């Protein structure tokens, strides 16, 4: 079983690396987080049920490690705050290479979103998890996934220059239900 686990985990590494990059916004830290998540998984290999999704389990492990790393995280946020203006300063160059860099712009905008929005954006829009699965991985209510996801996507489109409209005209009272 362990050999099969190792193969599956190795195959999952590109996606884990991407999730780590979205969380950390730093290549170096993403590499470290990916390695730490692998180590955590290997240390708890007995807890994984072969008939369950390894990707969900690994994303949850990575998310937990990241959130628990509070002290180092504060340092990161301080750095990130300082770096935000620098990211804006690159806009002129981005415009000069608009066509070539369109997707870079999308990625850069996504990485500038708040962390809680980046997480649901990656899990649902990029990784294709359902809202329920994303809620379990992120450890938040499904309604929170829904609202963060909408806010993140509309903010992203505004950041890349797509006009964001006002509130929808219809406001209705209804019981929102998710597919089970």
């Amino acid at each position, binding site marked *: 079983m362990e050999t099969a686990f*190792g193969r599956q985990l190795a195959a999952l590494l590109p996606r884990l690396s991407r999730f780590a990059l979205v969380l950390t916004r730093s290549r170096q830290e993403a590499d*470290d987080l990916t390695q730490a998540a692998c180590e955590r998984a290997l240390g708890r290999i007995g807890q994984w049920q072969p008939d369950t999704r390894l990707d969900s389990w690994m994303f949850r492990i990575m998310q937990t490690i990241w959130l628990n790393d509070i002290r180092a995280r504060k340092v990161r946020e301080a750095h990130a705050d300082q770096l935000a203006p620098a990211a804006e300063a690159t806009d002129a160059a981005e415009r000069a290479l608009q066509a070539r860099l369109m*997707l870079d712009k999308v990625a850069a905008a996504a990485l500038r979103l708040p962390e809680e929005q980046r997480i649901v954006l990656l899990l649902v829009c990029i990784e294709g998890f*359902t809202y329920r699965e994303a809620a379990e991985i992120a450890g938040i209510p499904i309604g929170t996934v829904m609202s963060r996801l909408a806010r993140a996507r509309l903010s992203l489109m505004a950041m890349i220059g797509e006009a964001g409209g006002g509130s929808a005209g219809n406001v209705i009272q209804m019981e929102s239900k998710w597919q089970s």
Partner: protein
Amino acid sequence: MAVLDDGTLAAFADGELDATTMRLVADLVARDPAAQEKLRLLHTSTGLLRAAFADPAFQQVPPGLAARVERAVSPGRIGGRRRFVGAVATALAAGVVGFVGGVTVDRGPVRLHPGFSDRLLNEVAGYHVAYAQVATPLDEVPARKTAQIEAWFGGLLHRPFRVPTLAGAGLVFRGARLLVVDGRPVTQLLYSYPGQPGRPLGLCISAGTPRSEALRTVRREGVNLALWGRGGYTFVLVGWVGTNTLTTLAGDLRPQLSTL
């Protein structure tokens, strides 16, 4: 109780609501231009995000990690896991000092998996049939935004791009959308015959083909497709037209696509 707010619209866009609620929201959206615009943005954002983060640069695995993972769980490699721990600890220690905040990505050569052309045909056919069942595709960028489409697709295809015309064959350019196959963006231009908006013809272009491919026609999912490869690009025409027509249209398109 909840309102038809942005979150509900997002859940609607993602097909996360139950059938009854989907119908209710669909009725309301149909009467609300602001909600329609937000839905378009929500759909477009998903396509853009998938394409942006499909770049292999975002999926670079730390050097040697895959091998270390496999070694760590291989039978008879006692101590492997301990060595793994050492490697992680060293990397973590280095990371505290090495944080620079900005994300730099290195783009290596495009690597396509074997059999890409066949999967491209399957995916394009599947998408085409599914999209045709939607009365007003929400993730389609309309033809009136041709300049934006050309800039967008030019970026994806790494070359100056002009939307080719098929007016000579009686087809009108309708809009564009983005597909993703094997994690790679596939641009799609849509044309239709006057009076037949529900039976569009699609022209798909994907960058990264390592070799040329002669034109061939196939039938998948009830639609006909023509595929050819040239100059590092794969082209696919798809629609409810005969294979002879597809071949003729491909001939019309080739000179116009020569800038790629």
